[in-house]
């Protein structure tokens, strides 16, 4: 047989046997190409141009390359390991390592570049589909049909050729470092011996937990106003990342291994079938598992974190708008408000008009805020504050010496904490009023445009309000003097009203339509949401696939064990209970720790993204867990197949 025939035969055989490698390739190429096609599409300019979308996409494409690269390198490792016997055989019949490497490279190249080509075709097809989703989220309809982009093609080919270079390098190293003996034995060496738990290992385990805890601690301090941390913010973030990842790895290497050692030692050789298939099987591959679990944990944490943050901003968008613009139309001058109302009347659009009278005073808040609020850059003792009369709010009725705060932005409240009670002093030009602070109320009557971006508004009794208004300090005179809020009675009129508003009223700075703002917000976030969602899902699928592939490989490796156990009289059911446990560990542990990591990551900085953390984060976590579990179930099914066919 000539070398060429050998290559051809191998190629034919491997195409069937190693379909998962091909699948990994197709998946990665298609995803990447779809992404780059979108990136280069002219219709995206508009979307990307609306915000710093371009930067987001750039970052995303780098991350995408990273994850795709890791994925392919991993798939290749499995691929080449599974073929180690074959490689050993070639060595045995006298081929040199270089010859083997060349042969494998040619074969690999055929496989790789065929997949690349097919993957690009698939990628082009799905990019259209993705674009449709994008239109759906952002609501931008002006996207024309997608063109095949040569730029995207070139970029994809370059990226994947570089990855191919790495893969070849890896294969070369693999072949170089194998002796014939090793090649035959690659699967049967245990990676964790019992009876050899050292003090060192315990130390590593503890260090791992300590590093994770330290990472969590620093992350919780990142935006808490700690001056030193804030000065070195970027460095601190890197520190958190490094210590958590390292800690996770040590945790697996040390703590988990150590716990397993203890359990197994305690059994004294007397293992039930369940433990044979879970405990001992996991320990058998402890070292490579530790690395893999670390990667999966990190990737999952990253994905969950990103998805949570983007969902938080989307979820909060509506709430934010409703806080920031309390009426359908917020008009900041009396004349405009009356004009618009009249215009609506002309067109028979039923609506209500609410005018809110407000004034501005000096506020001394030190008793309710505490001194630390100085860090946020305003003077606690004398800060300008909008004041309204309790007459404007049906639900609030105050005594002359009381005040409540309303109209606050949830985002600001996440950073600024008010005491439950205290004294607030409101003063005009000459007179001061000491008022008992009664707390915050979730009531919104003025747009944030008037209240310097969401700083609370003080509500006082009508008489106090009039005194303050009469005594208003001219130095403080607010930019806007009046406010008219207009609400449509029938939301079906919104299109017509929008048209009228944009024709005439909106040109005066400061007047806002809630509908238009919401649309603008959605467009703004849509692209970020999309990019982050795309990445998150890619991370999810790749980490799921990596685990699944790994389990496929393991099940094949362990097939002889299943044969033996079944010969000895253990049933498929007996074996499967053990397998389920093992999968619970293999999939569950990185998920749980990943969730934990992402929770702390999100907690450290979520308030920059929105005003509601728990609900969106929990929703994302639940969906992620559900999707991720699919891979676990699939792997159990695969095991079932292998076990069934083992005898």
């Amino acid at each position, binding site marked *: 047989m000539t070398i060429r025939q050998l290559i051809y035969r191998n190629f034919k055989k491997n195409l069937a046997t190693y379909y998962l490698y091909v699948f990994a390739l197709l998946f990665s190429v298609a995803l990447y190409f779809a992404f780059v096609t979108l990136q280069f599409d002219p219709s995206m300019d508009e979307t990307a141009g609306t915000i710093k979308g371009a930067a987001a996409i750039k970052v995303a494409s780098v991350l995408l390359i990273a994850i795709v690269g890791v994925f392919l390198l991993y798939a290749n490792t499995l691929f080449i390991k599974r073929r180690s016997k074959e490689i050993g055989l070639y060595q045995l019949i006298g081929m040199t390592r270089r010859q083997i490497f060349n042969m494998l490279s040619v074969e690999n190249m055929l496989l790789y570049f065929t997949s690349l080509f097919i993957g690009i075709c698939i990628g082009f097809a799905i990019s259209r589909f993705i674009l449709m989703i994008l239109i759906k989220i952002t609501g931008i309809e002006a996207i024309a049909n997608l063109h095949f982009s040569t730029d995207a093609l070139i970029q994809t080919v370059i990226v994947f050729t570089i990855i191919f270079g790495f893969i070849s390098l890896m294969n070369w190293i693999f072949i170089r470092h194998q002796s014939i003996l090793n090649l035959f034995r690659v699967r049967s060496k245990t990676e964790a011996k019992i009876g050899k738990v050292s003090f060192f290992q315990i130390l590593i385990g503890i260090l791992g937990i300590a590093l994770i805890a330290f990472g969590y601690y620093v992350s919780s301090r990142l935006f808490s106003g700690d001056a030193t941390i804030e000065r070195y913010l970027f460095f601190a973030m890197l520190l958190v990342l490094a210590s958590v990842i390292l800690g996770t790895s040590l945790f697996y290497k040390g703590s988990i291994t150590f716990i397993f050692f203890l359990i197994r030692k305690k059994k004294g050789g007397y293992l039930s079938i369940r433990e044979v298939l879970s405990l001992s099987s996991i320990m058998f591959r402890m070292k490579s598992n530790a690395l893999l679990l670390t990667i999966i944990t990190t990737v999952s944490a990253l994905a969950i974190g990103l998805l949570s943050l983007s969902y938080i901003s989307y979820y909060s968008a509506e709430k934010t708008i409703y806080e920031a613009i309390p009426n359908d139309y917020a008009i900041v001058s009396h004349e405009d408000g009356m004009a618009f109302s009249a215009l609506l009347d002309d067109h028979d659009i039923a609506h209500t008009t609410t005018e809110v009278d407000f004034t501005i005073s000096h506020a001394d808040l030190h008793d309710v805020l505490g001194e630390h609020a100085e860090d946020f850059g305003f003077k606690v003792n004398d800060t300008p504050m909008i004041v309204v009369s309790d007459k404007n709010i049906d639900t609030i009725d105050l005594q002359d010496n009381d005040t409540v705060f309303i109209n606050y932005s949830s985002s600001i409240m996440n950073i600024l904490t008010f005491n439950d009670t205290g004294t607030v002093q409101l003063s005009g030009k000459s007179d001061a009023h000491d008022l008992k602070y009664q707390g915050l109320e979730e009531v919104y009557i003025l747009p944030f445009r008037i209240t310097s971006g969401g700083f609370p508004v003080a509500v006082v009794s009508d008489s106090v309000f009039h005194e303050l208004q009469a005594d208003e300090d001219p130095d403080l005179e607010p930019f806007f003097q009046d406010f008219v809020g207009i609400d449509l009675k029938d939301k079906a009129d919104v299109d017509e009203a929008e048209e009228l508003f944009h024709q005439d009223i909106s040109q005066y700075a400061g007047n806002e339509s809630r509908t238009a703002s919401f649309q603008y917000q959605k467009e703004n976030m849509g692209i970020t949401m999309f990019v982050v969602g795309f990445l998150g899902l890619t991370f999810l699928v790749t980490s799921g696939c990596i685990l699944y592939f790994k389990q496929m490989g393991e099940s094949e490796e362990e097939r*002889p064990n299943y044969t*033996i156990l079944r010969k000895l009289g253990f*049933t498929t059911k007996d074996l499967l209970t053990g397998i389920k446990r093992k999968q619970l560990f293999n999939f569950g542990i990185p998920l749980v720790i990943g969730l934990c990591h992402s929770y702390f990551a999100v907690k450290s900085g979520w308030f920059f993204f929105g005003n509601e953390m728990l609900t969106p984060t929990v929703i994302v976590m639940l969906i992620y867990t559900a999707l991720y579990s699919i891979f676990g179930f699939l792997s159990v099914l695969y095991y079932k197949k292998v076990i069934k066919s083992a005898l």
Partner: protein
Amino acid sequence: MTILQAQKIYKSYGNKLNRQEVLKGIDMEVGEGEFISIMGASGSGKTTLLNVLSSIDKVSQGSIQIEGNELTAMKDQQLATFRKKHLGFIFQDYNLLDTLTVKENILLPLTIQKVSKKAANSMFQAIAEELGIYEIKDKYPNEISGGQKQRTSAARAFIHEPSIIFADEPTGALDSKAASDLLNKLSEVNEKRKATIVMVTHDPAAASYSSRVIFIKDGQIYSQLNKGGETRQSFFKDIMKTQGVLGGVHHDN
């Protein structure tokens, strides 16, 4: 009393186009407490016979009864339970789990019976010391020699005191001292506990430990020898003679 009865068993491998008949109508009976050897050339179907007798493999035709239970009519689940409880195996290629230590491998059959850990430990110690593998109890299969693997496999077959032990070339990888130790152990289990033993072997010396030898050729029983009142030496000579007639070890056809 007959514990195992096989009637007209046939076994073939492959599909319609490419069919290989390995067993061609074998009848045999095993009495309770018997120690039987099966001999024959390589590829003559000894392992196959052992597999179908022990319910690991299915016959193509014929019937097998163990203690009155028809194996061919039993479901997989039942067969498995039966094997687990009543049979012990020493396989030709050891069949040890590479994820378990020697001790864990040996204790495996006990875990399904409600044996206390302490009792299991003392049983293990006794058998492992007898077979000379106590020192390697914490090693993994890939760290021990072929002979040690074989003895580990034997210890696993004995430990749960099965009523029938199937052994495929149990002495293949052992030197003569270790081989006779193992065979003595087999004889002892056979005599003291009245365990029935069916053993495949190439070695006439090993076969001479048994009470009856069955010779297989071309998928059929060629002849049988009974030890009766003979000494092991003269039985050994008889076996040699029959093997000589059979043509010794040659490949099929």
